């Protein structure tokens, strides 16, 4: 078993050998020193030496760690804001003008507007004046479905007598007749 070398003799050598590693991976150097070894050599190192080394590393690395922590916090906050924006975009209702019911044989004589909102993981498009709504997995699908419902409801309600309609459907028919008519 070789005799341990003195820290006085070994430290300048360590500093030289580890100069890059000290600043890049101080923890690895500390671990190695704490094990009492240096590149295969056995070294005698005191607690005071280790404390001094830790102080040196801390002085250099603390600002870097603080900067890294600030960056990480900012990244987390940006990700959080992005998520919130996405939720707000989904939750905010949008107004979609409907100018055609093609390919159904009906035409829109007065522009009507659908309100599309996100609810329970699906989109609901509504033409509130006529109390007509339709669901869809996307905004586009919900609007297309609403157009189908408008055409279908108009088709059915206009074939019935007014006396066959209760207050709700009668109101629907009156509103629809204001906005929709059969193509000539």
């Amino acid at each position, binding site marked *: 078993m070789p005799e341990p070398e003195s820290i006085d003799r070994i430290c300048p050598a360590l500093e030289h050998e580890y100069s890059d590693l000290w600043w890049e991976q101080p923890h690895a150097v500390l671990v190695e020193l704490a094990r009492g070894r240096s590149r295969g050599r056995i070294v005698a190192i005191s607690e005071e030496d280790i404390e001094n080394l830790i102080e040196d590393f801390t002085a250099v690395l603390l600002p870097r760690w603080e900067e890294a922590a600030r960056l990480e916090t900012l990244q987390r906050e940006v990700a959080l804001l992005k998520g919130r924006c996405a939720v707000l975009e989904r939750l905010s209702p949008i107004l979609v003008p409907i100018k055609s019911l093609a390919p*159904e044989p009906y035409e829109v004589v007065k522009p009507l507007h659908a309100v599309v909102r996100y609810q329970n993981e699906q989109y609901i*498009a509504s033409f509130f004046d006529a109390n007509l709504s339709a*669901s869809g*997995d996307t905004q586009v699908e919900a609007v*297309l479905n609403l157009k189908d*419902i408008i055409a*279908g409801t108009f088709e059915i309600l206009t074939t019935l007598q007014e006396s066959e309609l*209760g207050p*709700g459907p009668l109101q629907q028919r009156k509103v629809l007749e204001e906005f929709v008519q059969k193509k000539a």
Partner: protein
Amino acid sequence: MAIITKQLAMEIVRKLKAKVVKRKGPHDIALVEHEGKIVADFGIRRGSNKELGHDHIPEQIFLRPSKARLLAQCPMSREDWVKIITEKGKA
């Protein structure tokens, strides 16, 4: 997750004894009659997926989503529903 799935929508159709008008488009239309008059209508999406969302139905049958779900799941009867829409002046 939709409050009213296709499965529950079909339960509402059954419960309200609605007449379903088959169409070529992506929906069939259910008509609910009371005392010889159509008092409500709503679209039923085509497709075999029982989980297909139908959350548009509650407002078309003049109920809040939770009440519409109760209607589909049994506690509320057709008579209860008629009473509600009568109070709202819809029948």
